[in-house]
């Protein structure tokens, strides 16, 4: 493998930083800031590998606008009832699959640990992100983010973004 160019390292850094910030905003319960990581016109979906591998599009969460992301968060804060819990994302290295002057395609393995009120921490969800990131403007943003999860048995509920 040839050594990466400076530009390739910059692209890789952008994609990894955006994923790290995505995880941090969710884990630190700064959910109101989370939709800002996405373009206005975007796609965010959380889909089981069980469905994805059969070319079935049914997702646990499917949003196709930033507004829908905001609605998910407002619903979490105002409407939904669920056991108190916290997430902790553990991210693997982000690999840039391809990039051009505008868009980075990247993927990243993740594990989400969940800690409930009883103090026990469990592996809640594990999978990989497949992302398209627009870095042509000021701040890089997700054009699309797909979390494909192996853990197809969801423990009780899924209210927080993955």
């Amino acid at each position, binding site marked *: 493998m040839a050594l990466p160019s400076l530009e390739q390292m910059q692209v890789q850094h952008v994609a990894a930083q955006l994923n790290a910030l995505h995880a941090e905003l969710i884990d630190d319960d700064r959910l109101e800031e989370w939709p800002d990581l996405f373009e206005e016109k975007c796609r965010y979906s959380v889909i089981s590998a*069980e469905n994805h591998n059969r070319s079935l599009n049914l997702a*646990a969460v499917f949003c196709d606008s930033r507004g829908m992301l905001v609605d998910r968060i407002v619903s979490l804060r*105002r*409407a939904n*009832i669920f056991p108190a819990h916290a997430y902790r994302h553990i991210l693997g290295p982000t690999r840039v699959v391809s990039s051009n002057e505008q868009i980075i395609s990247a993927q990243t393995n993740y594990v989400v640990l969940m800690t409930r009120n009883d103090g026990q921490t469990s592996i809640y969800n594990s999978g990989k992100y497949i992302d398209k990131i627009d870095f042509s403007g000021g701040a890089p943003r997700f054009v699309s983010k797909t979390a494909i999860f192996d853990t197809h048995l*969801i423990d009780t509920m899924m209210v927080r973004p993955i």
Partner: protein
Amino acid sequence: MATAPQTDNMKQDTSATGCRVPYRVFTDRQYYEREQENIFKGECWSFVGLEAEVPQAGDFKSTFVGETPVILTRDTDGGVHVVVNRCAHRGALVCREMRGNRASLECVYHQWAYDLKGNLIGVPFRRGLKGQGGMPGDFDMSQHNLRQLRTETVGGLVFASFSETVESCRDFLGPIVVGQIERIMCKPITVLGDQRQRIHGNWKLYAENTRDPYHASLLHLFHNTFGLYRSTQTGKALMDSSKRHSLLYSIAASNDDAADKQAYGDSRTFDTEFKLQDMSLLKGRQEFDDNITLVILAVYPNLVLQQIQNTLAVRQTVTYGPDDFELVWTHFGYQDDDEEMQAIRLKQANLIGPAGLISMEDGEAVEIVQNAIVGEERATSYIAMGGGRAEDADHLVTEGAIIGFWDNYREMVGFDLEPA
């Protein structure tokens, strides 16, 4: 069991009308084991899958009846079959995949092979090898098939029963359930995908939940906020003649803001300030001439068939233990859905399932009961909303269908098992 002295406020008033269910039926393993025998392996039909999940000859799906692993297959004549997923030889799982396609079912342990109906068709080294070994001379292949369950389909839903004596599936379901199945399964369907949810509670708490229209507008606040479903809507709660199944439905055309304000006042369950940024989530189409937009058909013992707006799904209960079950949601649409309709169904899927904006609370509702009744030997629940009897209602402020469930349960399992 020793009786502890009770103060007055610890005593339960058992004189008033209503249904009382001892909490130990949700926690005691003895009840769980009796349910497996008397309900799931007893005089019942259990839902195992959709015909559309096994469309081609050789297609199979691994699933469960209660806790017993079974396989749903499609044979080369087009028939569907349900067999216990356990080799007749030494008990190994025959199908280890969730789904797939095979010409025959072969156990990996010793390669005993069965046809798609579950008949034993091959035993390696049956006559030995070079004159050594082999099965005894009186070994009769036909006596060692996979356990074959009675299998019937209604409107593309496949049901199976361990019982040789239970009535036909259609009779078990009754005309109200069959009518509702046929209403939703009115044309060929296509499976959109599955969702699986692990709930740390007793499966019967979910059977109650899906027969309970009383909670809908009080627990699921997304409904109220967006006017998808309200207790002031026109709705009905009906049961079959045996009262083991339940049909809840409502008609959206009757939404009435003024009546809602009167009913809910300023309680937390009604918040008109809440507006969606992206209303496309609720964009849908009227699919049925009867204007019914919500159907929760709870079929005893392990199925819910639902229509919520344009989301169509079956929910199957798989039991793991007294305090543990899985809920398998299989979403579907119709084969003739156009592109826009497919998109509507995939977007509205945000409303239901374990991440569903209007349904995610049900797992928590089950678990907060399970967590509160741990170790309780004497106390009971008290179910009386709507009159305290297993009666139909032309409104949704009722728990009548829950009582219907318990009347059937009491008959099949009993409430008064002695602790082992």
